Structures are given as structure tokens and as C-alpha cells.
């Protein structure tokens, strides 16, 4: 996997999140404090800055850099994305070098899911980012590709609309959170979709040189 592809994926994700800023705020306002779009847009800016100085870094280094950039925004989404990305970076180092494969992608996805569960003490169904991440990892586990994983994340985010928030928001308020998708799940679905698109574009250009990155 080329660092250039990773960078392209990160930039695509940053673009997508910034474009969805207002929508993510709207979703967060329903049961939360209405700032998820702002926080993710700040994160996108921080991530771009982290990439601005294009040294010859390993993908591991790039991932750690963007993880720390995301940490800088604080809030709930800061540490959640950070812990997921740091887990991906660590796992990437453990995997054998060479082109990305479906098996590797699953390992990375599982690492992210475990790390996010560990830091946030949430589980699928609690109306959090995990409701997009978990179905995506499941798709990979079934042997499906990144396109299918992104699709599963989106479907999961949409299904979260019918869930009741119990974590990170007051559980008594839970019922009133029903109706709109979880903002964090939605931002993750967006990110996976944009990463898939960027990777697919790269695939076409390189004519099957590598498979896309998760």
C-alpha cells in the first residue's frame, strides 16, 4: 500500500466530513448537543494540517499522526476516532508487509472495533459509532470487500435511527433519541464510503496493482 493512497483516502474522508458538517450537527442536536459536525470538521482540519508536511513517512507513522490530530479536538468523537486509528496503526505494524488484502483489512477493522468498545464501553445497539463499524467488520468477516463493508456501515448507521441512545447521553432521555440516525455512526459511514471511493479510483488508475485500503 502506498502512502500516497493512504493520503488520498484521508483527504477524501476529510472532504466528506466537512461537506456533511451541518447534517452531522443536525443529527447530534436531536439527542445530543448539536456539535458533532463542528467537531468532525475541526478534526478534518487538524488532519489536513498533520498531512501538510509530506515527509517520507510510513503508513504507520501517517496513521499515528492523524490519530493524534483527531485527539486534539477532544469531545467524545476525538478519543473514539483516535483510539480506533491508533489500534489500526498498531495492527498494521504487526501484519506482514505487502499489498492490502481482505484478510488484513478484517484484522484492521477488528482492531478498531475492539479499541473503540474498550474506551467507550458501548456495544452494538447502543446507538453509537459502533452501529456502523460493527456491520462493516461483519461484512469483511464474511469475506466481502471494502465496497460492501462501506455499504454495511451505511445500512448500520441508517438502522441506528430506530435505536435508543443509552451511552453518552442520558438514558432517561433515550426514547426521545429515536427517529434520527446516530451522528457518530453516520460520520463513520461517510468516512468508509469516501475511503472506498478514493481507493477504487486508485485501483482503476493502477489497474489492479493493489486492493484498496480499509
Amino acid at each position, binding site marked *: 500500500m502506498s502512502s500516497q493512497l493512504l493520503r488520498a483516502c484521508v483527504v477524501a474522508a476529510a472532504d466528506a466530513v466537512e461537506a456533511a458538517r451541518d447534517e452531522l450537527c443536525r443529527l447530534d442536536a436531536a439527542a445530543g448537543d448539536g456539535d458533532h459536525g463542528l467537531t468532525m470538521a475541526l478534526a478534518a482540519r487538524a488532519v489536513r494540517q498533520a498531512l501538510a508536511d509530506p515527509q517520507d513517512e510510513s503508513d504507520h507513522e501517517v496513521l499515528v499522526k492523524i490519530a493524534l490530530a483527531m485527539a*486534539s479536538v*477532544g*469531545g467524545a468523537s476525538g478519543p473514539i476516532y483516535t483510539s480506533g486509528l491508533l489500534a489500526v496503526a498498531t495492527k498494521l505494524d504487526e501484519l506482514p508487509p505487502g499489498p492490502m488484502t481482505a484478510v488484513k483489512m478484517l484484522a484492521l477493522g477488528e482492531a478498531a472495533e475492539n479499541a473503540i468498545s474498550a474506551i*467507550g464501553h458501548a456495544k452494538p445497539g447502543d446507538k453509537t459509532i459502533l452501529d456502523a463499524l460493527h456491520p462493516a467488520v461483519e461484512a469483511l468477516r464474511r469475506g466481502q470487500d471494502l465496497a460492501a463493508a462501506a455499504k454495511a456501515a451505511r445500512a448500520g448507521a441508517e438502522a441506528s435511527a430506530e435505536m435508543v441512545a443509552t451511552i453518552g447521553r442520558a438514558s432517561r432521555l433515550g426514547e426521545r433519541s429515536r427517529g434520527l440516525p446516530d451522528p457518530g455512526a453516520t460520520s463513520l459511514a461517510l468516512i468508509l464510503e469516501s475511503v472506498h471511493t478514493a481507493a477504487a479510483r486508485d485501483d482503476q488508475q493502477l489497474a489492479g496493482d493493489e486492493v484498496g485500503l480499509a
Partner: protein
Amino acid sequence: MDESLEGFAAAHADIVALAEPRVVVRRSRAAGKVGFVVGGGSGHEPAFAGYVGRGMADAAACGNVFASPPPNVVLAAIHAANMGRGVLLGYGNYAGDVMNFGLAAQMARAEGIDVREIRVADDVASAPNAESGKRRGIAGDIMVFKCAGAAAERGMSLDEVERIGLQAGKATRSMGVALSACEVPGSGRPTFELTDGEMEIGMGVHGEPGIERAPLKPADEVAQILVDAILEDAGDLGARDVALLVNGLGATAHLEQYILYRGARRALEARGLQVVRSYVGEFITSLEMTGASVTVTVLDDELLRLLDAEARTPKFRV
């Protein structure tokens, strides 16, 4: 944000300084006291920087508006507060704060600093009694910060300061209501009004929705609803002494705060409780939200003495 903190530090330069753009620290304190760090998102001013000073916190970690500060900012605050006897972190129980302060605590512990955490969870509207660990922290923060800060100022050990903080937290319950401006009343008698004739009971300090939207009621009924919910949660208290705090959320006139205070005090007294300490004002706001909350702390001699201990911070003085 950064401009505002700069202004804050300049205005209160006799008490505080900026250690970093988002870290407010006390200028002077007794050597060897336990460090006490408070913090959270911005937009809640005078929380949290306003409570840095003698008798309360040693440092405040400030985030973006409504967003917990990131771990590195909290860690810097821990460093600023640490004088070798350990550091207590006090913050409201929100997912973001729990994670960011928790990460910072881990990092500090890795450096050998003894760090403890108090998560204030006083909002009875935000989770049932059985799941009180899931509750949000709202204006009860102030009562906990005051007691724990006074304990630290007295030179108590980290164990003791932590115990006091937990005890104050357990003794403290709050509930809020979003309501409109008090209109200049033709009758000379202000009532609460929501622009659409409704009020939101149990909303959070970030504008999170409450548990119920009800038609607008007079201030005394609102006070009764809030006090009833708090006392129901507290269980049978007998004839205890309590402290009563009424917190304006930013755009609620002082006039209304005192009307709500009066109603809450009457409701408490009708239940046999003695209101022996009172605090009315803007303690933890929600930008310019219109609304207020009622906080009740059940007192014992120790908490009362700590509440009465001297405090000299930019926004809280005893």
C-alpha cells in the same frame, strides 16, 4: 475561545495565569497540597476557569465549545496542578470528558503521578436512580468542586480529598428546566414563559432535550416539580440541613433566578428540610440558554464546614 481565555487571564491576573492557551492555573498556592484540576467544554462559563483560585481548583482544562478538552490539555493541567501529593480530577459525567480525562489520567499515572477522578453525576433527570452512574453532571459540579477544593486547600491527603469529593457528589442532586425570558409583567408579577408557551423539564447544560415538554407553568410550580424530582430520588431525608443552589443558564434574568429560588426553598421547607446555605447566580451556563436548574446538597457538619471555607476565585468567593 482563546481570545476569551486570554482576556480572562488578564482580567484576573491577581489570581490566575494561562499555562497554555487552554490551561488556566492558580498563581500561588501552599507548597505540597494535593492538586485539584477541573475542566470540560467551553460555553459553560464561569465554569470551569472561573473556579481556579484559593479554596477551589489549582487548574482548569478548557475544551472547545461543548467539547471536552483533549487528553494533552488535561495532562498539561495535571502537570500544572501537581505538587507531589497527587492530583484529583473533577469533571461532569459526559462520555467525552470521561474518555479524555481518563486518557490523561492514564498518561499521568504512567509518569508516576497519583491521579484520582470524580465524575459529577447530579442530574436526576438524565437517568433513573438505579443507573445513577449514567447521570450527567450539571450545576452540582460547583458543590463538589467547592467541597473537594476546600479539602485540598486544608492540606488533606489525596485519599481524603477524593473521599470528600465522592461524598459531596453523592449528597448532591439537580434538575433543570428550559424556560423563556421573564416578560415585563403588566401585573408586576413575572412568570416563566417559553417562546412557544412550553417548557422543557430536565434538559441538560448543552441544550440536550429534557425528559418532558410541558405547558408553561408558574415559577412556583416549576420549582415544586424540580424539588419533587430531586427529593423523590434522594429518598427519605428526615429533617436534614441542605444547601440550595439555583443556577441560571445564561439568559435567565436574576429576577427569575430568585423567584425560582424562593419557590424551591419553600418546597424544601414544606418537606421539613432546612435551607442553611444558598447560592443563586450563573455558575455553569449553556452559552445564552434561557433556563435554570435547582441543586440540593444534603449537608453534614464536614460538608458544611468545607462549603463555608474561604474561596477566592475569579467567579466564586466565600
